[in-house]
Structures are given as structure tokens and as C-alpha cells.
């Protein structure tokens, strides 16, 4: 429940404090939307405990607001993206000159954007003046994201989210080739190896793009692909495909070099260069294989999100 107290004197100065004790979020998003109309439509705060307290000081011609908000063990859906054990702590201030600042920490113990991701905690600070969007500035402390068996290290960045223009280097460590290939759920496709490297991330008002990011591995690995009937048939007419499929039946690589290019539209162009051999093909003669792969990563994530949800609802229907 919400309790408040206020006081003001004859000169019109005073204060108003209010406190919201533990407020259970069970299916209360429509209620919250009335208080916070700017909550994005796709956002659903399914579960969690919210505590909030604030004080508004005012005098004849100015006022200032301080508010502390905390969400614990939240379950949040944003469209097809799902996050669990979300802890969010925010200190917010706003005054009559329009100067605002929100500072806090967001911890996502488990998020699923089609593949599971964990974050080490996002410490942020967002400030500026409501009257001038050029003054808006979001600062994110460095943090780690854990996915695909490895981790991504994000440096501290400072950007105006309303007009972003920033380039920063993200470093990738120990990403497992097996986890990547599993995303494609292709029968007969198996791989083992780790991938490290750095990606230059550019953020512009159009979105995120990567140009000639360089990932790779000097630790030997293996790729085995025994194609389904369809692919094998296609290979009979295409010598390049035939050779690649023969090599990939058991490709033991000693060097993997991966160039990553990505556009805001989600279109990615990946150039993988593998050097190694296949012990039971051409007497193990050395192989230098270059795979140029084009795909849309956003479509991949959408497909993963949909198939995760469909398998859930199909499982439930058949279990009943």
C-alpha cells in the first residue's frame, strides 16, 4: 500500500514524501501502465516485488524530486525476449529546470533472446535535460555477458541514446563452436572448438553494425557434417559443394579465422577460413577451406524465439 505525508508553510514552501511498501507485481502491468504510460507496449512485468519511495521538495518557484525504486526477483517479458531473476535498483532525480538523472544497477540472472544470456550486472547512469535531447547521455560501466559457453566483455561506453554515435571494441573469449552450431539444429552438424577475438561495434541512429570484426582460434578443433538427403543430392551437381562436403565429413582444423560483418538490418556476412585436414579424405592432404556465409541474425533469433515457444506449447499440449 502507498502512504504519503506532506507539509508546507505560508510561503508556499514544503515537501511531499511517499512510500510504496513491497508491491507484488503479479500480472499488474496494466495497472502500472496507468502510472507510467511511457512503458513500452511489448513490456510485461510478469512477477517481482517493487519498493519505491520519493520526496518532492517545493518552494514558490522551484521544485525537485528524488525517488528510489527497487525491483527484486522480477520476471520480465519484452515481446519474445524473456528475463528471470531481474534485480533493478534506481536512484532518480528531476528538478524544475528539467535536469534529470537516473543512476542504478540492473542484474539479469537469466535472459533468453532465443539463446540464453547471463549478465554480470549493468551499472548505468542516464542524465540530461528534458528540454534538450542533445544533452541526454547514457553511461554504461564495463560489464560481461555470458553466452554460448563463453563470455563477451563490454567496455564502459557513453552514448546519447536518442542520437547515438559511438564505436567501441568488444572482446570475445571461449565461445564454444559446438554451442553456435547447435543454434542451427541441423541434423548431422557437429563441431568442437573455441573462438576468441575482438569485434568493433559501431552504434549510429540506424542501429548496430560491425565491419571486419576478427575472430578465430589457434586451438585445434573439429567440424563434422553428414548432410541430410537434400543437401547431398545438390552436391552432385556442384563441384565446390561436393569438395566442401567431402572435406567437412571430418575436418580437423588447426587454424580458424572468422571475419564478421553485420548490418543494422540483421544481415551478416561471415567469412570463415579453415586450415587443417580430413584424415580419411585424399590421404589427409592439407585443406584450405573458405566458407562465405550470408544470413540474417535477427531472423535467426526470431526463429529461435518462435521455436522455443512453440516447442513449449506443443510439449504442454501433448503432456495434458
Amino acid at each position, binding site marked *: 500500500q502507498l502512504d504519503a505525508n506532506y507539509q508546507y508553510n505560508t510561503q508556499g514552501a514544503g515537501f511531499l514524501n511517499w512510500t510504496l511498501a513491497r508491491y507484488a507485481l503479479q500480472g499488474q502491468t496494466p495497472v502500472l501502465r496507468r502510472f507510467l504510460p511511457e512503458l513500452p507496449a511489448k513490456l510485461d512485468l510478469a512477477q517481482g516485488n517493487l519498493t519505491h519511495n520519493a520526496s518532492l521538495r517545493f518552494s514558490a518557484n522551484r521544485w525537485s524530486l528524488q525517488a528510489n525504486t527497487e525491483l527484486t526477483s522480477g520476471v520480465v517479458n519484452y515481446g519474445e525476449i524473456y528475463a528471470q531473476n531481474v534485480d533493478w535498483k534506481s536512484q532518480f532525480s528531476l528538478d524544475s529546470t528539467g535536469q534529470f538523472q537516473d543512476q542504478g544497477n540492473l542484474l539479469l540472472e537469466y535472459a533468453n533472446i532465443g539463446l540464453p544470456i547471463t549478465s554480470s550486472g549493468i551499472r548505468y547512469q542516464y542524465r540530461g535535460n528534458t528540454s534538450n535531447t542533445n544533452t541526454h547521455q547514457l553511461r554504461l560501466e564495463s560489464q560481461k555477458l555470458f553466452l554460448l559457453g563463453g563470455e563477451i566483455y563490454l567496455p564502459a561506453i557513453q552514448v546519447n541514446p536518442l542520437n547515438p554515435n559511438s564505436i567501441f571494441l568488444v572482446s570475445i573469449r571461449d565461445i564454444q563452436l559446438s554451442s553456435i552450431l547447435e543454434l*542451427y539444429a541441423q541434423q548431422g552438424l557437429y563441431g568442437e572448438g573455441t573462438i576468441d577475438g575482438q569485434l568493433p561495434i559501431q552504434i549510429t541512429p540506424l542501429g548496430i553494425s560491425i565491419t571486419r570484426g576478427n575472430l578465430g582460434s589457434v586451438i585445434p578443433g573439429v567440424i563434422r557434417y553428414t548432410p541430410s538427403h537434400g543437401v547431398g543430392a545438390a552436391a552432385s551437381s556442384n563441384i*565446390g*559443394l561436393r*569438395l*566442401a562436403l567431402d*572435406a567437412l565429413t571430418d575436418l580437423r582444423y588447426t587454424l580458424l579465422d572468422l571475419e564478421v560483418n553485420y548490418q543494422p538490418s540483421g544481415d551478416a556476412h561471415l567469412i570463415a577460413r579453415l*586450415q587443417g585436414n580430413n584424415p580419411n579424405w*585424399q*590421404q*589427409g*592432404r*592439407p*585443406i*584450405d*577451406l*573458405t*566458407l*562465405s*556465409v*550470408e*544470413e*540474417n541474425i535477427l*531472423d*535467426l533469433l*526470431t*526463429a529461435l524465439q*518462435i*521455436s522455443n515457444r*512453440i516447442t513449449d506449447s506443443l510439449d504442454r499440449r501433448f503432456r495434458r
Partner: protein
Amino acid sequence: CTPTVQVAAPTDPITINLNVKIQHEILVKVDREIDALLEQNSDLF
């Protein structure tokens, strides 16, 4: 001694180039079909 000729496997690498275009069509196509359904048959949905 008699020289023996041994056919060693050629050591120069076989270079292979392959272009692959991955279409994540199926489930994305399902969503597009549903979008179209909802638009064209608003009386049913």
C-alpha cells in the same frame, strides 16, 4: 641400393571456396503468413 619410389600424398593444400546463404525462412515465414491472415480476415480473428 635400389631407389624406392614412394608415392607420398601431395602436400600442397586443396583450396576450396564455398558460398552459403542461410535462410531462416520457415518460422519467420510462418509469422508473415499469420500477419497476412490477420489483415485479410479481420472478421475471423
